[in-house]
């Protein structure tokens, strides 16, 4: 840090509002694509596991390994293949969402009470009707809980992709570090936290709306 300077220079901040706003949008885009693609992949994997329960162990093993790779190393390894691109960033970000999403989707579907399943089967529900009309709605709270964790971790991880030229708010953080300039660093960090908290809150509200039966007593 340059000495004798305030932690945040408000002048600089107000002069760069447009730039900061753009970084926020970029950050949201990276997050939504990562969680969106991750969710689709995880949903497909979960359906495969529903058909063949034997797949659960290998799928969680592979996604578990992906989850343990340090993010810095993963992005560095991908750069020679896919370059300093959004694709590189998303491959990494998506990989980190898979474990938590697969676990929660499968767990949610499996958590349907056996008597509910038996009653539905006894009334002539097919496997697909059971999935869409019984299992998915009842699994919603658990699935949304997984999405919340995925979103919050992804918002944090997006900043790391600044190292490969992406990063959203991570760009500001990296700029602060490179230039020994605390203002963008703090702004980037604080806004990243705010994004995580706000998105998490929105998901809580969405879940409450989508599952009215969980609110009743």
């Amino acid at each position, binding site marked *: 840090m340059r000495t004798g300077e305030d932690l945040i220079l408000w002048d600089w901040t107000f002069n760069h509002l447009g730039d900061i706003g753009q970084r926020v949008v970029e950050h949201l885009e990276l997050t939504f694509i990562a969680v969106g693609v991750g969710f689709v992949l995880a949903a497909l994997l979960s359906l495969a596991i529903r058909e063949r329960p034997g797949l659960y162990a290998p799928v969680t093993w592979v996604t578990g390994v992906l989850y343990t790779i340090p993010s810095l190393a993963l992005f560095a390894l991908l750069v020679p293949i896919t370059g300093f691109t959004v694709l590189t960033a998303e491959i990494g970000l998506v990989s980190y969402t898979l474990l938590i999403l697969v676990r929660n989707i499968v767990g949610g579907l499996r958590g349907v009470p056996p008597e509910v399943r038996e*009653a539905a*089967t*006894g*009334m*002539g529900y097919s496997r697909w009707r059971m999935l869409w009309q019984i299992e998915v709605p009842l699994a919603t709270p658990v699935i949304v809980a997984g999405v919340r964790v995925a979103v919050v971790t992804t918002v944090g991880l997006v900043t790391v992709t600044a190292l490969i030229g992406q990063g959203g708010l991570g760009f500001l953080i990296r700029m602060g570090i490179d230039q020994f300039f605390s203002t963008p660093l703090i702004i980037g960090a604080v806004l990243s936290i705010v994004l995580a908290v706000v998105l998490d809150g929105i998901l809580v509200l969405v879940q409450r709306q989508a599952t009215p039966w969980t609110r*009743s007593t």
Partner: protein
Amino acid sequence: MSQATVEFRHVSKQYGPQGAVVDLSLLVPAGDICVLVGPSGCGKTTSLKMVNRLVEPTSGQVLIDGQDVMSIDVTTLRRRIGYVIQQVGLFPHQTIFDNVATVPRLLGWPKKRIDARVTELLELIGLDPARVAERYPAQLSGGERQRVGVARAMAAEPPVMLMDEPFGAVDPIVRERLQNEFLRLHRTLGTTVLFVTHDIDEAIKMGTRVAVMQVGGHLAQYAPPTELLLRPANDFVARFVGVDRGLKRLSLLDVSDVGLTDAETARIGEDGDAIRRRTDAPYVLLLDADDKPAGWVNLSQLRGSGPVGPEAVDPSSPIVTLETTLRDALAMLLASAVQTAVVVDERGRYAGVLTLDALGEAFRAAPEPEAAVV
């Protein structure tokens, strides 16, 4: 009124080397309640589930109105059979209305018909549609949920209903009420019912015919309840039915089978001295303005004059309905100081009194088993 016969023809089910059900043959006439009863592991639930193909027989046939269930499309078959289980299995994410509407919707009934049917059913099972239709199962009591489970099973007017320990998870008082309600419902609907329980008392009370099953999947006896109590086919049935067979026969009779008598009554608020002047009976029955009984008042303990209020009644005053079984009525009489039960009608109004003598007389006059054998 839809009903169908259900027949098991030499049905066996094997899991591995063990027989869960062995060569079961029985015919349930249309409109009967057939109770499958026996200790756990006797194959009663397995037998039940072979009707709607949740379990498929290893050999033999299950026929509904003469048609082998294995030849009917499984979805079509199940939508024509009502299914009630002990844990109810209501859909927690759907309202009571939607739960009851399940099978009619699967069958593609028009909306108006579904609305009318659900409302009718909720009323039939004694739940106010305006109060419960938009609620979720978690907002109802256990007894209410169990009723909704029965309503859901009956929604599409199935000719056959399967009930697997339907009242096993509720407390004894609620269970008795649900049993009586279901019997009343059955009298108006007449559906053929297969009912599984491990409770011989419930079997005797609910069954038109009772199939006693033995561990290992053998049918030990298939007979109307009275015959089962008077002529158990073997030692196993005799032991299962229990040494209190005579007492159990009391479960087959209810208060409406007994000649009721009248008692001295008084109104809440009447003067104590006036009552004593009017009668020399030791007890009078205190009624409110709507003829609803508050209980017995012991005149010898009534001190002084002044209006008599509900606080003066003996707290052990037994009150029964016309549907209470004589077995339960007897138990209540023995536990009470007055030994005369107050009988109320369906609106809770005083209808007469039941004495121990009258109860014994009705028991001795009950039809001999020969008359009951079909």
